[in-house]
């Protein structure tokens, strides 16, 4: 299982791939004809994916690059306008910058918090006591609730007058904010929602913890290391590939954050654009205003941002991600 975590998701990893098909073992007696046959059959088997890749990935990928230089409202054919979309985005569209700001702010707050909560829960639940499975299930449960349902539950518990959260705050005589209606609190509401679902990543960390060899801890105990020291020197370094994986995926997912923002603002990104996430703004431009050329340009900027951030995280991994035994 751990192999998969260590796998840098989007770099080719030759050793992992197709080393020993059954055909390889026949080896010596293989002639040109059977080699050709293997190639033919191999390509036949992967053809569903290959066709899907060409039609649903490669073609749209190139097409959206082209569309980003056009004015396109889907009804009329696209009209080439050079760099106009990009110019407008960078110099004349405050909403583009607003949406980028919202997304980055959320990424900076939610991604680390979810990471820390997930790891903390995993460390806590990685003990062998009676009934621990029940607790694991409890913490995991929120993450299987469909996003649409989670959001509708949170809209209700954050309701200003009669919602659960403000009722609980009222016990302590605190007048709770109006949450989803107050631009200062919307982002935090979404962060709470993300933390509520952090149990999903806990399972991944638990699996990672199970793979840490026990003798490391035994040796550390003999050396008189404290529990905190052991966590710091053994657990976290050994877990770092999993943390790394979750960090990368967390950042990528934030830039595609859509459903929750769409639901709590009814597609508007309000109040005061405080939930105008990048993906939501792109959706608005493309489908509400049918400005699909601009939407494509936004998609490409998104793509470049994600590639850049991922590259930076990948570069940083030498310093803190610990592979190997």
């Amino acid at each position, binding site marked *: 299982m751990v192999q998969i975590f260590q796998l840098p998701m989007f770099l080719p990893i030759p050793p992992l791939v197709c080393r020993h098909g059954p055909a390889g073992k026949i080896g010596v007696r293989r002639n040109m004809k059977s080699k050709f046959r293997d190639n033919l059959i191999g390509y036949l088997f992967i053809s*569903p994916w290959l066709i899907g890749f060409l039609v649903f990935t490669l073609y749209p990928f190139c097409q959206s690059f082209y569309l980003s230089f056009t004015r396109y409202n889907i009804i009329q054919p696209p009209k080439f306008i050079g760099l106009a979309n990009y110019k407008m985005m960078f110099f004349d569209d405050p909403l583009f910058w607003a949406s980028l700001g919202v997304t980055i702010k959320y990424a900076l707050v939610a991604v680390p918090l979810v990471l820390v909560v997930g790891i903390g829960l995993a460390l806590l639940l990685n003990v062998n006591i009676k009934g621990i499975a029940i*607790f694991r299930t409890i913490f995991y449960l929120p993450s299987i609730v469909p996003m*649409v349902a989670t959001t509708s539950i949170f809209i209700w518990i954050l309701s200003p*007058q009669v919602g659960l959260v403000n009722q609980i705050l009222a016990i302590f005589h605190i007048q709770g904010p109006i949450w989803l209606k107050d631009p200062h609190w919307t982002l935090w509401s979404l962060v709470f929602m993300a933390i509520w679902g952090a149990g999903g990543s806990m399972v991944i960390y638990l699996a990672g913890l199970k793979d840490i060899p026990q003798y490391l801890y035994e040796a550390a105990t003999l050396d008189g290391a404290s529990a905190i020291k052991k966590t710091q020197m053994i657990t976290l370094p050994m877990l770092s590939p999993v943390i790394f994986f979750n960090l990368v995926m967390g950042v990528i997912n934030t830039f595609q954050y859509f459903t929750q923002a769409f639901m709590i603002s009814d597609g508007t990104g309000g109040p005061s654009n405080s939930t105008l996430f990048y993906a939501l703004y792109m959706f608005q431009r493309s489908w509400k205003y049918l400005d699909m050329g601009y939407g494509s340009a936004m*998609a490409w900027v998104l793509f470049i941002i994600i590639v850049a951030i991922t590259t930076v995280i990948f570069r940083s991994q030498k310093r803190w991600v610990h592979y190997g035994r």
Partner: protein
Amino acid sequence: MTSNESAIKQRQKVFLYALLIILSIPPLMPLIWMVSTSLKNDAQIYTTGGTSTSGFSLSSLWPKPFVWNNYPEALERMSFMVYLRNTLFICFVTVLGSVGSSAVVAYGFGRINFKFSSFWFALMLATMALPGQVTMIPIFSLFRSLGWYGTYLPLLVPAFFGSPFFIFLLTQFFKTLPSEFAESAKVDGASDWTIFTRLILPLSKPALATCALFAFLGAWNDFLGPLLYLSDSRKYTLAYGLQQFVGNHYMNWMQLMAASMMFIAPIVILFFFAQKTFIQGIATTGGK
């Protein structure tokens, strides 16, 4: 171990349990609150012990009396049964399509040695990280020009071209299967297709189940797809219908929670029956 030490151990255990129980409140509370709300009426929500001025009390969680009406009313108002049928249809077809096609492709990658196979495999892994937004507009435009807008086809057809994640999972699984049987079958003149359907597939039930489960969840939860492609409200799925329900001007919390409850329940039940498959899948994928 001295009795003193075991007393400390005992105390640690008690402390741990107490901590776990307290920490269990935040994940459970919203769900309990949802169930409780779905069984109340207006009066219970807005007056009895339930306004922010008086504060929260545990007893307010218990509906007095139980109001079951919200469920049939939500069913009616949301056209729940229609959406359920639509959703189940989409789930069924996408599970069949994506698991079937992914298994075929995975056999190619995992069991056949062909030219450039590692290049294609790496490329496939790379596509997993490509944000959907980048390809969204041209795909939409493509489906629209085919006249598929407003039909289920844009939600169903792509499933039949394999899902990179399932292909990856199944390829890894197929590689772990011993090759002796397959080789002796080959000597007996069996074709790759026969080996795939008669030998590999029956041995791969657990991996196929994981994929099927996640394909099902993906289709059940999908919001963006229906939002982009469905226009006729009779064709809506549950996820989309629920969002529309929230978006409606009047906000009937009790019915909304009843509807949410009915939307979540099948997933939770599925989870308790297939817990192992769930965890296995999550632990290998790294998320939803």
